[in-house]
């Protein structure tokens, strides 16, 4: 087998599943497993040295997640391309359903109970929107990017789900979705000045939006600006989080010996504030270790995007990578008091089913781009043999 023959086949994409599996980036999967191992250990500690109630179930989900990664990785990328809008549409309908259920008084919830899992459509919207946008730009030439219609459609595609998610209300996820979409638009070549304009308008809109925010959302922002404002109320969480982090010091208090987390001074230590617990028990050394793993995964994402030959794959890979970055950055910055508390979990570490499975889906899609990096896709997005 010559290289030329090989690449011709790769270009056509007619590979057997086993061949595709050999193309999967197993080392990326290894690093993801490393991150999960951190999370598993933390959930075990959060449970007071027990697999229940968090570590055990989360491990089961992770193993299921690995299956998802591999299955998604070897799907033909053109199928992803073809069904990108359908997937986006389905998730959008679920989001509307969640909002409508809240409206007709069945209680405002962020999830839909599917029996075996509580599905959070807002989580699924992250990959769905990224793929839909990538799908859209796959068919747009570089000289057509500047046309208003090519800006208007993606912006509408982004703002509709973002508005629905804000309404849930889940400001954190809405922010993540919005910024991931912005990442895709940026990489697709939308002009810099347009971003600058939007940011300027956005800042200008804050005083207009402010009265429409929920009280607790306003409080979170105010508390972020001055955590000592109400040390026993809204400032309590962030203050306790900083105490836990700081008291961990360089080497931490030791695994399962974090006083702040064990004595429940930390709120939601198994979800939003799990990084705090990690930094308390394992110290700055442990926190830096986790951060390094995240950066490794980030570099993998970039390299997959660089090596991909088609626009769809590049944009998907960059969108997912950007989303992933924002995901862990916002969480860590939040618990360290650099950002307001917006309720974003820590990828692969925090307890939570939908979040973990969505992440694994994203890893699967990234792998898929890696496997199908050389495939030629027609301008119109169809399967081109």
């Amino acid at each position, binding site marked *: 087998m010559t290289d030329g023959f090989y690449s011709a086949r790769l270009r056509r994409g007619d590979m057997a599943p086993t061949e595709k599996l050999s193309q999967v980036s197993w080392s990326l999967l290894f690093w993801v497993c490393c991150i999960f191992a951190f999370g598993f250990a933390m959930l075990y500690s959060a449970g007071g040295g027990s697999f229940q109630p968090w570590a055990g179930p989360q491990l089961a989900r992770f193993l299921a997640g690995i299956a998802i990664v591999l299955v998604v990785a070897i799907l033909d990328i053109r199928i992803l391309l073809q069904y990108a809008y359908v997937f986006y549409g389905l998730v959008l309908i679920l989001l509307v359903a969640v909002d409508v259920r809240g409206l007709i008084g069945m209680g405002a919830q962020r999830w839909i109970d599917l029996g075996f899992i509580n599905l959070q459509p807002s989580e699924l919207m992250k990959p769905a929107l990224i793929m839909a946008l990538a799908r859209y730009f796959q068919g747009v*030439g*570089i000289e057509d990017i500047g046309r208003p219609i090519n800006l208007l459609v993606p912006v509408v595609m982004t703002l509709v789900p973002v508005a629905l998610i804000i309404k849930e209300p889940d400001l954190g996820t809405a922010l993540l979705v919005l910024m991931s979409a912005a*990442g895709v638009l*940026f*990489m697709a*070549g939308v002009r810099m000045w347009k971003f600058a304009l939007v940011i300027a308008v956005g800042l200008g809109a804050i005083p207009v939006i402010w009265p429409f925010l929920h009280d607790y959302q306003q409080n979170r922002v105010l508390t972020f600006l001055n955590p000592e404002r109400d040390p026993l109320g809204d400032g309590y969480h962030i203050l*306790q989080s*900083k*105490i*836990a*982090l*700081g*008291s*961990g*010091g*360089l080497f931490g208090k030791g695994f399962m010996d974090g*006083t*702040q987390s*064990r*004595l*429940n*001074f930390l709120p939601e230590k198994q979800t939003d504030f799990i990084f705090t617990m990690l*930094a308390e028990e394992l*110290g*700055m050394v442990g*926190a*830096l270790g986790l*951060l390094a793993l995240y*950066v490794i995964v*980030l570099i993998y994402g*970039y390299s997959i*995007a*660089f090596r991909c030959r088609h*626009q769809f794959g*590049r944009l998907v890979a*960059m969108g997912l990578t*950007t989303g992933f*970055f924002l995901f862990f*950055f916002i969480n*860590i*910055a939040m618990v*360290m*008091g*650099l950002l307001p508390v917006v309720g974003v979990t820590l990828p692969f570490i925090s307890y939570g089913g939908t979040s973990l499975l969505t992440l694994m889906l994203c890893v699967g899609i990234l792998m898929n781009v890696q496997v199908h990096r050389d495939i030629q896709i027609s301008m119109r997005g169809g399967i081109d043999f």
Partner: protein
Amino acid sequence: MIATRDSDWTKMFNRRAAILGGAQGLMVATLVGRMYYLQVLQADRYRTLADENRINIQLLPPPRGRILDRFGQPLAANKQQFQVMVIPEQAPKIGQTLEILSQLIDVPDHERERILKEVRRKRSFVPVTIKQNLTWEEMARIQVNAPDLPGIVVDEGLTRYYPIGGGASHLLGYVAAVDEADLTGDPLLQLPGFKIGKLGVEKIYDMQLRGKGGTSEIEVNAVGRAIRELERHEGEPGADVTLTIDERLQRYTAERLEDESASVNVMDIYTGEMLVMVSNPSYDPHVFARGATPSEWKALSTDSHAPMINKSIAGRYPPGSTFKSVVALAALEHGVAGPDATVNCAGFTTFGGRRWYCWAFNQPTRAHGNINMVQAIAQSCDCYFYEMARRMGVDRVAAVAKKLGLGDITGVGLPNEQKGLMPTEAWKKAATGEPWQPGENLNIGIGQGQVTVTPIQLAQLAARLANGGLAVKPTLIKKAPGVEAPQLESLGFSPQNLAVVHEGMFEVINGARGTARTFAKLKFTDAERKGWTMSGKSGSVQTHRISKAEREAGVKKQEELPWEERDHALFIAYAPSEQPRYAMSVVVEHGAHGSDTASPIARDIMMKVLEYDPSRKPRVDEDVVAAAPPAMVPPAPAPTATPVKPAGDGQ
């Protein structure tokens, strides 16, 4: 074309990816910087905050020291007390649990409301007290039914207990909850339920009895639940205070006084140690430890017999005829009368244009006739002492009285001790602006008028007369074993003069015509004490003036008067007469004649004192004391015909 477009794409993509990557790199660097700031630069500060979060320092109250009598018998001690509490989180159906509990012990409805209110207010793991001071039986009943009472726990603590009951309340005082005014910064005082001494010895020696609190460092979680004890520093239990009181005599005296409104004080004439200090009626000190109800307060503070006042130190009475011992000694000391010189008693003396009656005037004999000093003391002849006082004037009487400690605090060491008053001419001028009237001298001569004394001063007076004029002072605190009693100073009275007064006081009880010959003779039958005698002086003090009309109509018998109008009965005594060791004072408010009411009380108590002879016995529980020679051992008393004065403090 496609290639160009591809390369344009790639260029832009790479450029933008670099921008994005660079931005993300910067943001990661920000995270690392923040981490370094929090976990390295500020680590110490946050570590302190984390410890403050989780460590709760609790005070451990030290057990209060005991108050012991001279033989180590507890007068105030700590008793285990049981209280029943409910831990709400362990009692899911709290109403039902309380219902079952109230069938076992009495829980009034208003208490049940309070409990439910407290349960709602406090965190679910904080125990709420249901009832304190459970009896052993109640405690056992709850324990037996424990399976039906989820969340109910019985807790034991210490409560102050006075085995003698009310028998020494005025002396010991009581403990009660801390008031705002008591707060001194000692954190112990802020402990809920902590009690401090409020009166008497409990108050004076509070710091010693209190001890030092320990601390316990408890790790607590975010809602304050205790997780475990990290460190414990035991405090110092309060030190015991040993009094000079003999618990047996104190108890006997309190019982002997029955319902009388009275004060009895017995002291060792050489050491000043108080063996008995009883003020009657008394109160139950336990009431204050648990908190007196308003109605209990009212009952105690409005009682005509003044149970809340320690009459021994705070009751001021004219000394009446007991003062004649002082006037007699003063007359001898100032040379205005010799032991054998007589004064004629006609039943009254005329001075300043009016008659001054002798009490004999109301007796069948109407007068004492010619009477010398010894007989004047023995028969308490008023005319004789009118004459002595007239000859001396108040200031010369006061000089001797003051040496004997009258009109001044004794320094026995209890709060609220009163001075009484020994008037002088200068005092009257300063206090009222009026000059002293010669007639007032006569009143002073028989211990009436302005002069007032406290019962403890009277005991001190008897002791100073009995010990040969040594400046003994009453004390309540037993000296540590081996500590020498300080040498007593002499007051400078002539032994011959004292001997005359002694003889007079001997005759009061043992003479053929002594005022107290009927009731105050000691009645020992055992070989050792047979023939021992007591010396003393009775007194009765009019509490209202006898008008001329009354006197002509025939003075009413005391028993016919309402209680408030009867005379105070007083008695001072020491024994054994020949070799005295113990002195005492008895004051019975409105007890009518001293010789009738106070003297038998004095006799009974003195006999008990001599029987136990406590100053000669070592503390039973302390070998050290037993081994050490007593600070002062006078020769064993032996009945002899002539009174032997003790050789003073030289031994």
